[in-house]
């Protein structure tokens, strides 16, 4: 019997001059959970896209079950028994679970027979793998964890023996993630093979049997998970020793610099996203807001920074009111000492088509030091950008390079350099390390701590609970637009996880 589910031999892929995958060899044993980790841009997604038929490899062979297989498109991958659960779900939101699962596998023009068959098959799959979902529920009404389950069912319905999961826990609460891992264990015990792509080392340690590490397009190592450590994997990913624990002393909070009182904000569709939220941030402390994405954090940040108009409430910046329900505008707030590193750096924090130096003045472009009257002072702008590039180790060090050509970590450094170098009183940061590689995470975390130690008030929003816990001096948990609890950063992950899932906080309720 052949016990290798997938073997890749000499897979090579170039995009123009970018060598995304260099001569990749990998074996995945049948009936195991195999992790693939690597920094952003290490080539993980490219490799999986080749395996699932989105791209064609420039060279190399794929063997599925010991047979050489040409995967020219996703249909061929499905026929070979490979299923993929994407990071962003590919579901029709206003269809039911059953309709989504049948989509593309209807079998005839008249749906009735197919529906009956799909319903029976779905029931069997649910029982076999303990994947309970109501087949008649409409997707958009299901929580994210269940939507992901539908994606898994979709792959299984098409007869997948090998499942690829791309960053599956990004949108889940810790409890939902644990549930997902139990499902994966269940699938494994039924003989399925699972490829788990992630950048979270903890997940790799928790569920995988073996792990492959990619760096700069190369497969640098494969380890048996039980015989490796988080430190070793981090070092393999980055190519040098990495400090995973953030080094920080105790906070010395001073005056309240940012005060939010009874703030309520609606989103573009008029849905209330922030409901009567109040909190303070003092000089010299980092207040972290934890929560699953989509619970009002984005709208909160936008209202505080003047981008989105609030419905009601008050915000005080250094004791002076900001007119958040009316005329507050971001450039005014910048002048008053509020710097904002937005959550969505690619669309909000940067203009990707601008060159680096143009982005290094975004929002501060009315500063006279960048201008000669109404004209841009190109020399001053480039000089300023060059200084920041040096100070923040932005690579490549070229202020004239188009911003889209920088890696995620370097793009984030461009934003941080711009906002931090203005010496603001209050720094508001959303998702500081989303899509940023391990090496840059360390750098960014250090800078945030330095800002705190320099006496700034830092408000940090992140969906990475680990990041919130390691950086913050106080943790607020946001659920459904409300602050549902405050904890010390060393509170148990389980406790914070329950709050993030909206389980009523007994302490608050008692008050």
């Amino acid at each position, binding site marked *: 019997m052949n016990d290798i589910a997938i073997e890749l031999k000499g897979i090579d892929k*170039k995009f123009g001059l970018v*060598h995304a995958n260099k001569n990749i060899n990998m074996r995945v044993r049948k009936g195991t959970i195999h992790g693939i980790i690597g920094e952003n841009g290490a080539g993980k997604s490219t490799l999986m896209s080749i395996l699932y038929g989105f791209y064609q490899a420039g060279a190399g062979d794929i063997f599925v079950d010991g047979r050489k297989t040409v995967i020219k498109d996703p249909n061929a991958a499905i026929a070979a028994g490979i299923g993929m659960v994407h990071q962003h779900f590919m579901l029709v939101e206003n269809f039911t679970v059953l309709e989504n699962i049948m989509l593309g596998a209807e079998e005839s023009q008249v749906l009735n027979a197919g529906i009956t068959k799909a319903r029976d098959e779905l029931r069997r799959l649910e029982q076999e793998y303990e994947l309970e979902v109501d087949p008649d529920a409409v997707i958009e009404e299901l929580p994210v964890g269940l939507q992901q389950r539908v994606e898994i069912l979709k792959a299984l319905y098409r007869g997948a023996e090998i499942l690829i999961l791309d960053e599956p826990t990004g949108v889940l609460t810790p409890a939902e993630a644990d549930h997902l891992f139990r499902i994966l264990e269940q699938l494994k015990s039924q003989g399925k093979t699972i490829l788990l792509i992630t950048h979270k080392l903890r997940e790799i340690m928790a569920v995988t049997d073996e792990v492959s590490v990619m760096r700069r*397009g190369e497969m640098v190592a494969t380890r048996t998970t039980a015989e490796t450590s988080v430190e070793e994997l981090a070092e393999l990913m980055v190519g040098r020793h990495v400090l995973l624990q953030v080094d920080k002393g105790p906070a010395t909070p001073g005056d309240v610099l940012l005060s939010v009182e009874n703030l309520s904000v609606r989103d573009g569709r008029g849905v209330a996203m922030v409901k009567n939220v109040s909190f303070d941030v003092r000089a010299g402390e980092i207040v972290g807001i934890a929560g699953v994405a989509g619970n009002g954090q984005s709208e909160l940040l936008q209202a505080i920074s003047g981008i989105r108009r609030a419905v009601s409430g008050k915000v005080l910046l250094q004791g002076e009111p900001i007119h958040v329900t009316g005329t507050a505008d*971001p450039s005014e707030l910048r002048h008053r000492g509020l710097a904002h590193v937005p959550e969505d750096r690619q669309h*909000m924090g940067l*203009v990707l088509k*601008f060159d680096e130096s143009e982005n290094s003045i975004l929002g501060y472009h009315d500063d006279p030091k960048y201008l000669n009257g109404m*004209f841009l002072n190109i020399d001053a702008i480039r000089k300023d950008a060059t200084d920041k590039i040096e100070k923040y180790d932005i*690579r490549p060090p070229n202020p004239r390079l188009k911003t889209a*050509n920088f890696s995620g970590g370097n793009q984030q450094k461009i934003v941080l350099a711009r906002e931090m170098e203005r010496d603001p009183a209050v720094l508001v940061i959303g998702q500081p390390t989303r899509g940023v590689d391990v090496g840059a995470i360390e750098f960014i975390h250090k800078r945030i701590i330095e800002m705190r130690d320099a006496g700034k008030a830092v408000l940090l929003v992140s969906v990475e609970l680990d990041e919130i816990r390691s950086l913050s001096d106080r943790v607020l948990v946001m659920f459904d637009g409300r602050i549902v609890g405050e904890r010390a950063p060393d509170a148990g992950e389980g406790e914070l996880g329950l709050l993030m899932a909206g389980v009523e906080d007994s302490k608050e309720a008692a008050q």
Partner: protein
Amino acid sequence: MSVPYAKLPAWVDYGLIPLINLIVAFLVAGLVVLAVGESPLRAASLLIEGAFGYGEGIGFTLYYATNFIFTGLAVAVAFHCGLFNIGGEGQAYVAGLGVALPCLWLDQFAPWYIVFPAAILGAAMVGGFWAMIPGWLQAKRGSHVVITTIMFNFIASSLMVYVLVDVLKPAGSMAPQTRAFADGGQLPRLDWLLASVGLDIGGAPFNLSFLLALVAAFVVWVVIWRTKLGYEIRTMGHSPTAAAYAGIRQSRIIVITMMMSGALAGMMALNPIMGDQHRMQLDFVSGAGFVGIAVALMGRSHPAGIIPAAILFGMLYQGGAEISFEMPQISRDMITIIQGLVILFAGALENMFRPAITAFFATLGGSGSDKPLPAAE
């Protein structure tokens, strides 16, 4: 890794790809000529000969190109802000009033160099105003400029018929046009410019507005790439969310950009009115506003690309007229088809050959050098 196409060398991006598109457009146009039983080779040689073969042809080509530089710049400025101003036609048409009225008032007693600045100002103001209204509606009411500028083309058309027939037409005249301007309303021709290279422009109305168009192209470059306003316009165009984040007042930028765009379209009116007809006639814009869209697309919204693209379309206009004169089988409409094909391949299908060309360059670059991943930490 998420970028499917690698970056191409600049000469491929800005030179080779437009050239291939153009060649394909002419090949397909050749098939059309073949289908009506004429020789494509003869048509091609007539086209080129008619546009560039002699002084008068060149004069006409550049005269048409002047129109298209203005309207192409107008579309390009709006593009940089993410706005699609397809109302250049109407803006130029109404701006005719801004040209004709100063001429009618001043031509009897002021020389052209007094009347010209007044007419430039008038054209820019009236054209800018005509574009400002759709801009304001977009900024404040969210009415899409594509819709409103089209509607404003029709309003402009009706308004100008009324003005020319009922207001500006001299008593007793049968033609819907103003009276002819005296010397003060006539721009000097640039015959000396072509004479300096030994060409005689004959009767071609190649005039001073061509130089104004070149100046306008330079000013547009300065404004878009070298001023704070241009920075804000480009930020808006690339990413409205980033503009909101930067505190750029979006409605203000939209209105200003549309006014600039309308002013540029409006200045096109100087060329036919003061430079050629020396009166304002019905339908003097005759499609230049729409050609501007193709010119801006083909010129990649950059003045350095718009000028050659405008000259190309000037060549199609002038050479096309020559073809229909020499080859009776090929009517004026056939020329429009050829122009349409150029627009189709150079504009709408601009990226059709890009993947193949990129793949070709990837194989060239891939086998030779083995460069490391850029920018990876």
